[in-house]
């Protein structure tokens, strides 16, 4: 760009004309990158401002805020792992059918027959790593007191994101449809039986009735709604699949946008006042 020359400090030598200069000057290149090549502060700022992905960041940041020992990079890693999970998850969806008949054999086929079927491993280990890293992110934010004003609301968004991370992991746990999956989810969802008022073995549920007819029973309580049946079965598999692949990721994505936006609006990475 023309103004690079003007902004170049006197001690910086002029850059050699690149053999690709015609490409940089072309209308196509210039329409994509709205900043020049030169390493000057103006272009460094433009890289961030003119890029939809980069502009999640501010242009400038407090020096103490970039220290790895301050942030542990846990927030960034949580988001990065969410992206890894999205990519590997989409790949998995090509090979996986959420029915009792096919689910397990599809997973076996993925392991045995699909070239580079490694993405199931990446998806599972990435999910475990994400849970741990989100917890450590919360720990870091607590230790630095970064939830204090003006960041109270963003801490709350973070708590919901933490819950969504656990729910994502939990719904995904069922999908391989093996013994590990079905019984872990059975143990987990059995708790819902005991929901006060809404579960058929929960305190107070027996008082919700019309005449002699109980309204909250094994075929109508909150657990039934969650599982789509009285036991973990095919309906549960489909429910958890849809929750896992569509509903919760969409919710998490929206909240993540809010989370990142609020970091900026609340004054960037926290630091001493």
């Amino acid at each position: 760009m023309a103004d690079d020359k003007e902004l170049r400090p006197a001690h910086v030598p002029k850059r050699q004309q690149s053999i690709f200069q015609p490409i940089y000057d072309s209308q196509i290149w210039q329409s994509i990158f709205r900043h020049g090549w030169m390493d000057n502060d103006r272009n460094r700022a433009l890289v961030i401002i003119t890029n939809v992905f980069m502009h999640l960041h501010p242009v400038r940041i407090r020096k103490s805020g970039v220290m790895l020992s301050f942030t542990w990079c846990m927030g960034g890693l949580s988001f990065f792992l969410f992206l890894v999970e999205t990519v590997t998850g989409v790949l998995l969806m090509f090979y996986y059918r959420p029915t009792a008949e096919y689910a397990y054999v599809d997973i076996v086929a993925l392991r045995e027959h699909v070239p580079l079927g490694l993405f199931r491993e990446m998806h599972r280990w990435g999910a475990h790593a994400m849970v741990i890293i989100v917890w450590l992110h919360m720990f870091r934010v607590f230790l630095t007191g970064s939830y204090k004003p003006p960041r109270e609301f963003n801490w709350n968004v973070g708590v919901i994101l933490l819950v969504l991370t656990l729910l994502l992991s939990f719904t995904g746990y069922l999908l391989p449809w093996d013994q590990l999956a079905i019984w872990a989810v059975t143990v987990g969802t059995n708790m819902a039986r005991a929901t006060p008022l809404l579960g058929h073995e929960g305190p107070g549920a027996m008082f919700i009735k019309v005449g002699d007819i109980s309204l909250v029973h094994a075929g109508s309580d909150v657990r039934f709604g969650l599982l789509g049946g009285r036991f973990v079965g095919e309906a549960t598999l489909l429910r958890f699949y849809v929750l896992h692949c569509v509903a919760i990721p969409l919710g998490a994505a929206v909240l993540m946008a809010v989370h990142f936006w609020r970091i900026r609006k609340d004054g960037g990475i926290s630091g001493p006042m």
Partner: protein
Amino acid sequence: MEAASDTLKMIINKICEPEPFFILMVLWCFASVIWADKWVKPKIAFTMMGAFFLLYLFSLTDSNFYSIATKGDNIPIIAMLFMSVYFTWLGFWRGVENDKRKAEGRPMIEEEGKEVKVLVWPHLIYIEFIVGIFCTALLVVWSIVIMAPLEEPASSAATPNPSKAPWYFLGLQEMLVYFDPWMAGVVAPSLIIVGLMAIPYLDKNPKGNGYYTIKERWFAISFFNFGYLVLWMALIFLGTVMRGPNWNFFGPFDYWDVHKQPVLNNLNLSELFFIKTLDMGLPEHWLKREALGIALTVIYLFVLPVLFDKVPFFKIGEFFKKMRIEMGAVRYYTFIFLFLTMMSLPIKMVLRWTVNLKYVVAIPEYFFNI
């Protein structure tokens, strides 16, 4: 050599029983805050971490521990333990350093070059980039080396023993030993979420905003660490490594014997009171039977907070009174309610271990047991 290693294993098995394990974790949690400036010294901390790692390597030589620790889904838990220890140290180390600097009147680590702002490109982007590459590489290697677990096809007829929830919920499953599902599975998780969300509104301490410190927030940090490191992380570890068939307790080096019979002598408060103490039968009506338990619960949750505030129980009373004045009544009572609910787990644990108490209030007629 053989004998020495057996003795060591026996000692560790004993230490890992729920009672000493939990008590040690609690002690560590508060000692780590009180003596933060002692143990965070890199030499001491890294010696401890090294010893911890050596202990782990030694444990792997035991076939029983090896079979648990190398199970696919359990590997992240072991990694999480080491990471928790390391990052706790890192946070505390920076906190202690800041406290020291403050006492000497020097600027804190975060205050150095406070007015200097660096450009995100390249100063932050390259850190994110390197971390991302490192993480991807680690994940790929991890995926190549260790296969994702896949057991036999799902069958509702064959219940595995033990049936465990996914590992991140094992703290809640451990709670089931002490509480009914409606508490452990529904009320407790909901209150954890509510409690976490309430933290910024309850913590009125203006200090420690945006930098590591221990001294200025010693209460908040010990309290949070108790919930996070002990009641969550440590219970996950306990649930993974030390809970075997029928959710019986096994030491890390014990063989998971399906036929182990635990002593079942837990009694409800009503039984302890009417049968054991008064030597008479249980009253017919549940209200009469459980009146004592209900009264105790109500006192615990609703009278105790007022007592804390009004009656000077030595230093504790003053502490809570000061807290009420600083926080205001609404915040104080919300906090104390959440605090007491959280403390009900360790209290119930202690009561179980000492007097074999099963339920304080037991009304199975209405699925209402506390």
